[in-house]
């Protein structure tokens, strides 16, 4: 009998431990991440994925969300709306309710109606087309609208004594983005008597003739040149303007703000003004810690895509933990209700539509580096 009791004494704690362990290791929480991971806009997607992975690792290291670890299903929308819709459907069919993405505004046209129809929730890190804002939809974001960028560009033009005759080169595949910035700029400079005197669109995928377009621009004799393109394309245009010995000030949108711009642009991008969504010299401790970790992990400076995707993910994870819910509707309401989130560098204000507004910056390229404009 005594021996029997001893056995029971030995087995019970083991059984209880096993049972508790079984309870704790619940089914993981799966979220989707969709971005362009290949092609000319992949820099944005890859950096976004890096930022997201930092957030996921951080949350899982802290015990997950309500005892559930987080798993990410990564999908490549190839910067193509049709592909984007397909992968969104795949995620929905896999039981995913939350999508972090997409990263480029042109994807919104098909994806947002889809998530609306399926009661999913899309957390938007970098889609900033003004048309996406103030809509009652299943989209919440951490990025300011393009109209804010237009304001920064206008102010910079005023400061640099330009803004009367503006020439604009814009990428047409991501027209949702580039179009709204262009319109914003036109809108902003109009009261000052400024106007867009020349504009030319190009398609990134179709091997654009950068030199020719650049020559067209210079021929229009603008006092300001605005390039609304990816970092590579922007760099390529800057190279042409450099070759053509252009002295007109060039303004770039936040989309171009990538390491690639500096690498590919080299000396040609020196002095270019660029709207920045992040302050790369931020001294906020949260950002410094993040940056250090990121540098260590990926061997490169974190870009705005990485920062914003990280923030978008953390906003979702924290709200899920706070509400102890995984219902998209509940999460969206909780995010809107809370209103203000602390980003890595500054506060993110969320309005009643789930849209964000936050501080954006004017940067210039100086000595091969992005520097905050004085």
């Amino acid at each position, binding site marked *: 009998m005594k021996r029997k009791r001893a056995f029971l004494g030995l087995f019970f704690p083991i059984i209880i431990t096993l049972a508790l362990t079984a309870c704790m290791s619940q089914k993981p929480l799966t979220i989707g991440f969709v971005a362009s*991971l*290949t*092609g*000319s806009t*992949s820099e944005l*997607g*890859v950096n976004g*994925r890096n930022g997201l992975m930092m957030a996921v690792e951080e949350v899982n290291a802290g015990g997950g969300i309500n005892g559930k670890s987080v798993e990410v299903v*990564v999908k*490549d929308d190839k910067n193509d709306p049709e592909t984007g819709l397909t992968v969104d459907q795949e995620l929905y069919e896999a039981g995913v309710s939350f999508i972090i993405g997409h990263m480029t505004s042109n994807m919104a046209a098909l994806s947002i109606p889809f998530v609306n129809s399926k009661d999913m929730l899309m957390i938007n890190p970098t889609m900033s087309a003004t048309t996406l804002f103030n809509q009652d939809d299943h989209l919440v974001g951490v990025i300011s609208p393009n109209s804010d960028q237009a304001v920064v560009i206008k102010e910079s033009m005023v400061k640099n004594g330009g803004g009367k005759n503006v020439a604009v080169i814009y990428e047409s595949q991501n027209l949702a983005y580039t179009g709204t910035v262009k319109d914003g700029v036109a809108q902003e400079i109009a009261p000052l008597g400024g106007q867009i005197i020349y504009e030319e669109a190009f398609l990134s995928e179709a091997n654009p*003739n*950068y*030199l020719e377009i650049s020559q067209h621009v210079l021929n229009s004799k603008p006092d300001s040149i605005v390039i609304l393109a990816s970092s*590579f394309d922007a760099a*390529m245009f800057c*190279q*042409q303007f*450099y*070759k053509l010995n252009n002295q007109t000030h060039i303004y770039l949108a936040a989309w171009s703000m990538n390491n690639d711009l*500096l*690498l*590919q*642009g*080299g*000396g*040609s*991008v020196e002095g270019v003004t660029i709207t920045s969504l992040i302050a790369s010299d931020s001294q906020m401790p949260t950002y410094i810690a993040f940056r250090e970790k990121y540098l*260590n*992990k*990926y*061997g*490169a400076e974190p870009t705005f895509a990485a920062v914003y995707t990280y923030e978008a993910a953390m906003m979702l994870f924290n709200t899920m933990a706070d509400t102890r819910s995984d219902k998209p509707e509940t999460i969206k309401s909780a995010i809107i209700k809370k209103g203000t989130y602390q980003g890595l560098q500054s506060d993110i204000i969320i309005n009643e539509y789930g849209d964000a507004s936050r501080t954006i910056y004017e940067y210039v390229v100086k000595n*091969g580096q992005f520097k905050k404009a004085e």
Partner: protein
Amino acid sequence: MKRIKKLRDFILINNMLSIVIPLILVGLLVTPLIYNYLIKDMHEKNTMIATTIAQRMSDFIDESFQVLYQINHLLDDGMLKDDVSIQIYLDALLDSSDSVEGFEILDTNGIVKISAPQNVNILGANRTSQPFFTETKATRQPFVSSSFISQQTGNPTITIAIPQADGVLVAYLNLEEISMLSLNHIKTFGNTVTVAITDGNGVFISNKDIIKVYQREMEANYQSIHPEFEIEDQVHAFTYEGKTAMVSHADVDNANWHVFVYESYDSIFAALRPFLAIMLLCTGLLLFFSRFIARLVFKDINHSFGELNQQTKEIAAGDYHPINTDNRFDEFNRLTENFNGMVACVKERDEALQILAYYDSQTRLPNAVYLSEHLNQLILNDRGKIAVICFDIHNFKRINDTYGPSFGDKILEMMGARLLELNLSQGFVARINGSNFARVLTEIENPDDVLLEIEKLRAVFNQAMTFNENNVYLRFHVGIALYPDDARVVEELLQYANTAAEMAKQRGVSQYAFFENSMKQNLLRNMTLENSLRSALENGEFFLHYQPQIDVNNKKIRGFEALIRWDHPQLGMVSPLDFIHIAESTGLIIPIGAWVLETACRQMVCINKKMGTQIMISVNVSPVQLSHEQFPEMVEETLKQCGLEPNLLELEITENLFINSFEEAIKIFNRLKRIGIRMSLDDFGTGYSSLAYLKNLPIDTLKIDQAFTRDLLIKKANENLMESIILMAHTLQMDVIVEGVEELEQFDCLKSYHCDHVQGYYFSRPIDQSELEDCFKKMG
């Protein structure tokens, strides 16, 4: 409570455990060793694969650099004089190369001077921010960039650069072929071992999942496997897609790339599986053999046990034979030997017990138990007629009393010896108890066989028994009961034989009697009488008759003999002959006798008082009464209570009294005589009629049995005998009463012999107390 196990299961289980436990221990010891060996082996093999691939990558980079050096050489030597010839040369090189997809010649300011293939967008571009320009220019050393996805080709690409004059010579290497290396490896060698290549940041250049290359994914555990933190010979194991895999790696030094080789631990288990299967098979086979051998061994043991078990059962059933000790196990043989020893002891003891249980130690003849069991067996076998012959030594008690008990024992012993010498063939002889024996005779064809047998027995007993110079001739009374004629059960047979013997005894010594149904009825009647005798006294069923004793000279009444009568409620009048002996055997004679004495005395006091006479009363006393310790006191007390003069009471005793103990009889006689009463010897002439009694006992009156009176006038000799007895009595100072006088001639004859008193029907039959007065009046 201790659990009872089967020996077979115990042996089987222990045998199996003795095989399984060492095997498990060996398994537990060997499996980790083999596992570690396999891990090490796998790691070494995979590291070799990684090193080989790394070497190939290194060669690829080197070969690519060789191209750049070749161009540089041509440029330095002025072999390519102008930009056009350079362009042509570079284009030609591109056409012939699989991996180089472009060249750029940068001037000292980082401006693209020549670009192949020719591209107006690139020509003149500023490369001052590109590390391939800045680093090469600064270090004057060959440079290899991180990988990136080419905007032109969409493929993973690196740049390599060497210093050229004041500028830099750059080549773009398309890594498409390298990116496919993992897939090709799987196609060639299968997917047990997979390969991946990353750049210095851990971003995949080659992976079995090509998407990871194009999406610029990082090796998930790159940080952990990073050479910076590596310990020599460390085995890395990480989980990929839910499976744990071992990761081996090698570095491509000239490109800061890393080659990773993955192999799932499943393959180690797969390698371990045959070993485990062999272990399992061996265990199974050993278990099978152990079971087989254990069964064989147990078969022998079981056989031995079974044999012992069987023998034990047989011995328990009374078959005491020794067990065969020829067993292959020494222990078992020893056990058997000890067992045989024990069996011998038990057998010996059993035999002794059997003798004790079934034989009489004194006569060495079978005893009553033996008789009962064997007779029962004979009855069950039902092999014809059986006679149970009961014979009892006549007056054995008297022999004991006369010669002492040891003489009696010796007589029995000798009798036993003589009976044993007879070597009886049919049946047996047994001693029932005391001097009572039974001969069981089987296979009787007619009653003469029984008589022959009785004669045979008588021949044995008729010889004198001599011990210590004392000769004794034994006489027997024999009773015979027959199976199945008289009874069919042992008890009844013995009972009936005894009854018959009792009858023979009553008939006289050395008589035999066959059991008859009347005896049975007699037996039943006696039983009824015995049962009702107990209550008869209380119920007042007894009464007295009185027979006058007449003085011969004056024909006047001398006294009366009180005679008991029993008026049984069912049976009517019962003769004293029928119930006195029952009263004696049951001890009821004591109260009955006391009642008779008291009633007779009171009656006589009453009559004497009434009639003014001094008439005597004679009361019969049984030897049982007389031998009762308190008898004389009782007599004295009765006389006092009734107020009868002691000299008016005469107690009549029979010669039987002396049979038991003559000495004791004298003592009682003397005590009674001291009271003052008279003593009379009844029924003289029917028993021993020993003159010694007459001489030594203080007898006042001799009562001559009526048998003498009946025969008195038949022969002259009888008259003489009567005269002589009367004369002898008178000589011994005794009065004489002759019983049974029924005729005047008899009376006259007796008178002529000077007989004192007579009693008989001639004068009066025994009369009721109510007639006493009339009798007195008539006879005075």
